[in-house]
């Protein structure tokens, strides 16, 4: 779902400042960024540049202290707690650097979890889980727990979990950060494939410029909370 002008997410002069005693930490400072529907955008920057904070703001996990985030035309700051939860559940899929699978659940249960939260009918869930796992080629590992899977498999499982509710936005926070380069590349190929096949909008946080240049359609570089460049692929 997008607005009429094809913009999926629009960060309008967004700031996220933290007060630490007398000091003010400007994690994100006056950033304006537009992400078009179906686009694969990489937020590039070193540690502490504010890229993850900006991603969290766009995912509705955090609230800006200034400016506004518009997703599908709606100002996230104006949504109630419940509406924000629904936005995260039905519009957004998230992938993290540390996978964040629940260790005591099987792969099937982990992938089913967003469907429970979105109150999808029980009868429909099996097929949806199967579909998501087939997309990441893990359909034969249903009963395995995260501890029984490799890092790459866990990240693919996390990707299946992010896709199971068929979101229009996929936010990935350093998805290859905990993986070796070969596995990381396979994950990036999978993300690219998903973008191309499903027409999904993907925003990925990374500090690896080669990876961003190879797979993203556009790179937004951040430093010290500010947007340095937008769209440059060297």
């Amino acid at each position, binding site marked *: 779902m997008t607005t009429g002008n094809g913009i999926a997410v629009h960060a309008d002069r967004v700031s996220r400042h933290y007060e630490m005693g007398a000091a003010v930490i400007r994690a994100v400072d006056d950033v304006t960024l537009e992400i078009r529907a179906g686009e694969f955008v990489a937020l590039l920057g070193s540690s502490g540049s504010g890229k993850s904070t900006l991603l*969290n703001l766009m*995912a509705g*996990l*955090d609230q800006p202290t200034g400016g506004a985030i518009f997703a599908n035309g709606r100002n996230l700051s104006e949504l109630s*707690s*419940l509406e924000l*939860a*629904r936005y*995260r*559940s*039905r519009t*957004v899929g*998230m992938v*993290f650097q540390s996978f*964040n699978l*629940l260790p*005591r*659940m099987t792969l099937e249960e982990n992938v089913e*979890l*967003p469907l*429970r*939260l*979105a*109150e999808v009918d*029980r009868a429909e869930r099996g097929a949806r889980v199967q579909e998501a796992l087939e997309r990441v080629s893990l359909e034969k590992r249903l009963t395995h727990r995260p501890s029984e899977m490799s890092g790459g498999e866990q990240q693919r499982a996390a990707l299946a*979990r992010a896709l199971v*509710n068929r979101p229009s936005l996929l936010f990935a926070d350093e998805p290859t950060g905990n993986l070796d380069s070969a596995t990381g590349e396979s994950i990036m190929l999978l993300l690219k494939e998903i973008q191309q096949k499903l027409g999904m909008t993907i925003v990925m946080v990374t500090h690896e410029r080669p990876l961003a240049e190879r797979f993203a359609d556009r790179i937004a570089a951040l430093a010290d909370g500010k947007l340095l460049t937008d769209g440059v692929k060297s």
Partner: protein
Amino acid sequence: MKAGDLGELALRNLREAVLRNSLTTLGVAVGVASLVAMLSLGVGLQELATKRLSNSGLFDTVVVMPRRNMQPMRRPAANLVPSKPDRVLDDDARNELARLPNVLEVYPQIRFPTEVRYNGSPYSTIVAGVPDSSRGNGSFDGIQGSFFSGPNADEAILQIEFAKDLSEQTASLIGKDLVVRYAEREALPPESAAAGAKGSNAADPGAGGFSIVPREKKLHIVGIVETEPAAGFGGFGSGRLLIPLEVASALRAAQVNDLRDAVRATNGKPVYASLTVRVKSPALVEGIETAVKNMGFGAFSLLDATRNLRLFFTIFDLLLAIFGSLALAVATLGIINTLVMAILERRREIGILKALGAADRDVKQLFFVEAGVMGLFGGALGVVFGWFIGRALTWGTNVYLHRQNLPSAHVFSVPWWLVLGAIAFAVIVSLIAGLYPASRAAKLNPVEALRYE
């Protein structure tokens, strides 16, 4: 999140920290057991007291007398006009009383002095008639021998003290016969009655008279009772030789009130000095008493004593519940502690849930359900523990009572309302205990929670 999913996730979470959650649930169970044991003891003692007092005939009976019999002996005031005419307590009145709603039975009190002959020796005692309904109402619990074989059987049950007068080996009396000598009331022929009434009551055509004829009746001893059954007000107490009411009635033995009735007009019909009206429950006594008074009779009961008894047990139960709840209060702290620990341990998981779309409400409900499930299991387990404690208390009490040569007593009772109430109370207390942890979990910032290692 749907209720089914909430329940599944909550149970899964509880299973993950099975030892800690089991111990917390056990804490709730101990608290509930303490509460159930205390209240069951209160309820049991109340039931025991009510049963014993009910058996005594103190609280579920109304004694009915002709109104004038209840007036003190004094000269009637010349200008006193009774609001309702005095009614005679005859068979018509008895039938009318028996038809009142919630009345179980109406029977006359028959009690008369007698001389008993046993083994050639005379013994003075009081004979009392026992209604056949006493067979199953607990009045004769612990009887040595048996109750009367039928309502018209020529049989006798001896009160232990009287039995000791007859023989030191009281048990050997059962199966033996004794002879009762009594004064039978024999109605005079009409002309003789009229002649007898000439002096003072010639104007009263209804005046009757009777003569006293000595009689004997052989009775077979079938039982001995240790305690004095139904010794109370309005019952057949103070009788030391008990015979079936029908037999006592057929003897037509002269009673204390006969002389008074002889000088009153009774139209020749048999009249009763008093009737005992047995009511379905003590709570209905007041209504029956009013109805009887409205019929033109005098009536009294020990209603106030029943009220005081209920008040006493209500306060007693309340105090027991307060002491019993102390353990549950401690268990509540255990639930809070367990859930707060769970928040710390599952901080990251809460962050993940929120990132995946869980609303604050979902997280709060999840912790609530976990607290509720601990309360539910703890409550159910507590009721079972409480029941066992009660059984142990009853057993211990009865061992003590037997050593004191006293009959056994059931001092413990777990009614259904207590079972359901205790479980519901445990769940409610657990939910209250879960308020703070659930609220704290729901307010967790997902970004901070996801960073937590």
